[in-house]
């Protein structure tokens, strides 16, 4: 299939408290389907999808982590080398929002400084049960320099956008040179096959990929 041709691989991780819908978001993004009772994740799970950003085919390699506190020791080892981190909370449960700062600390400490962190308020379809306002979360995101969207894995609203916006940001970072592809843990791999229209400005060594 033609879609197997891609120029980059971006590594993503999805983090957040248990039951906020991390796996559901991933499933919605990769399968375009909603799983009402998504089995809970033990350790990590994995999903991929190829998207197109600025005419470039990009393969997203998404690591979906277990949310329970006890698994943090395990999931922390997956932060390394992620180009994007999707931090998810549940708009109907304030406790999941309250824990964001601890997730953010982990994400900042364990990824490289150029990792794009995206905040997602999931379950936006459950308006009547809302516990966290959009404004409040937006302020949190702005204060911490995060991009923020409220999404719904159930209806699919903003799911696609969240993943693709993150990819766009990463791609921009590559193009303006702030994300060094040669860095060991950039989270981006470039396919060595010549991609016809790679416009990477004047970065000469951009195609050697990362060492891992």
């Amino acid at each position, binding site marked *: 299939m033609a879609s197997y041709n891609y120029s980059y691989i971006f590594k993503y991780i999805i983090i957040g408290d*248990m039951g906020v819908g991390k796996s559901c978001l991933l499933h919605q993004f990769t399968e375009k389907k909603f799983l009402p009772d998504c089995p809970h994740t033990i350790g990590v799970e994995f999903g991929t999808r190829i998207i197109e950003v600025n005419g470039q085919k990009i393969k997203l390699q998404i690591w979906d982590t277990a949310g329970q506190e006890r698994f943090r020791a395990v999931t922390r080892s997956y932060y390394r080398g992620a180009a994007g981190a999707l931090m998810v909370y549940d708009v109907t449960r304030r406790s999941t929002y309250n824990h964001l700062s601890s997730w953010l600390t982990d994400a900042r400490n364990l990824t490289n400084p150029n990792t794009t962190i995206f905040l997602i308020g999931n379950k936006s379809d459950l308006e009547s049960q809302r516990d966290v306002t959009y404004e409040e979360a937006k302020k949190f995101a702005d204060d911490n320099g995060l991009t923020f969207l409220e999404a719904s894995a159930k209806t699919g609203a903003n799911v696609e956008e969240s993943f693709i916006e993150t990819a766009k940001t990463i791609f921009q970072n590559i193009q303006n040179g702030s994300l060094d592809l040669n860095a060991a843990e950039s989270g981006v791999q470039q396919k060595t096959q010549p991609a016809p229209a790679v416009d990477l400005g004047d970065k000469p060594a951009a195609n050697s990929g990362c060492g891992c």
Partner: protein
Amino acid sequence: MSSSSPRPPPPSNGLSSSGSTSSTSSTASNSTTTTTTTSSSSTQAGGRPVSLTTLLGLFTHNNNASNSSSAQPQPTPPHQHEHSTSSANSVSSGSSDSASNGAAAATGHGDDNSAQGRSSGNAILSPASVQAKLGKVKRAFSTLVKRTDSPSTSPTGAAAAAGDTHTTGNSHSPVTILPNGTQITLAPRPGNLPVKDKAEEDRQRRQFEVILDNVKRKEDQENRRNEKKDKQVGDLITRWTTEVLPNWKHQMRTSRKAVEELVWHGIPPNVRGKVWLLAAGNDLHITPDLYHIFLTHARNKLRATNDEEGGWEVNEDATAAAAAATANGSGSAILHNSLSREQSVHLISLDVSRTFPHLCIFQKGGPYYDSLRSVLEAYVCYRPDVGYVQGMSFLASMLLLNVDVVDAFICLANLLNRPVHLGFYRMDTNVVSVFV
């Protein structure tokens, strides 16, 4: 029962009255057909008749897929050469009129057919005009193959076909449903079309017979395979119940290898629970009372924290703090940790309905929701130093599928008491590092 379901009365020839055994001539003919077929079916009485298995098997097999279609009366009487089988069916179901023997669906189906078989038998003896018409129709058979993959469309399709046969009068068109869901009907050509010539009709009938033969052969093969499998399972069960289970301890001491070998063949479902319980043992000497005590304790805990608004959010934070403390290797955190891990009892409700969701039994309102929740909650209070860890629910649910609630708790507690499980579930870095 489908036998009592309203069968659309065949039109025009007054079959509804002659269908009852009041008309002498028709009963006479009926009895002759039945006697010829009883001889073949009586030898098979008791168990599943061999020659019928194919047909019955077909119907029972299809019972789930096209339940609606089989429940719907099939006003498509059997074709002549199928007549013997169908009326054999009618004998077996006719003897117990309510059609409440073993294969209810099969007999129900057969009953519909047989009813039609009888009525068509009657039709032959009906007034001459009808007979003439019937003769004409009988010459115009056509094979009709219909897919019934989607049960929603099949009943309408069947009904449409049925409607066809109705308008043309009473003709023979057995509906045979293949195991793959394909429905084969040898149906007559509609009356408004020219009559089919004899050669074509014969050819199509032969084709139909070939198809049926193939199906029967396949069915026989399948049956033989199943019988063999059943026998193997039967042997396994006998070995488990007579040799291993009665003297488990002795067996495990003297012939552990043999038991392990037996396990590798797959433990038959009906002894699985017993084997698991024995294999897991009860070194912890947990009693049903203990389970109930911990369950009550857990319920009280949940109620207490539910009463104070937002109480467990704080506790969750405490869990995080404790985990961080242990990660730093702080010894004083252990007590705090064990206390706060008990708070993970609140997390259980998030995961119960997400356990094997495709089975649809652990969801809220499902039959196993409460028991799974109870087992996990009791365990958290039984081992507050371990608490609830995501993944436990899969283990507990698997146990619940095979043993009752108390036994599942006993089994879970003993299983998780093994050093490896305990190490991993407590994220005991010393233990984990040995294995990773």
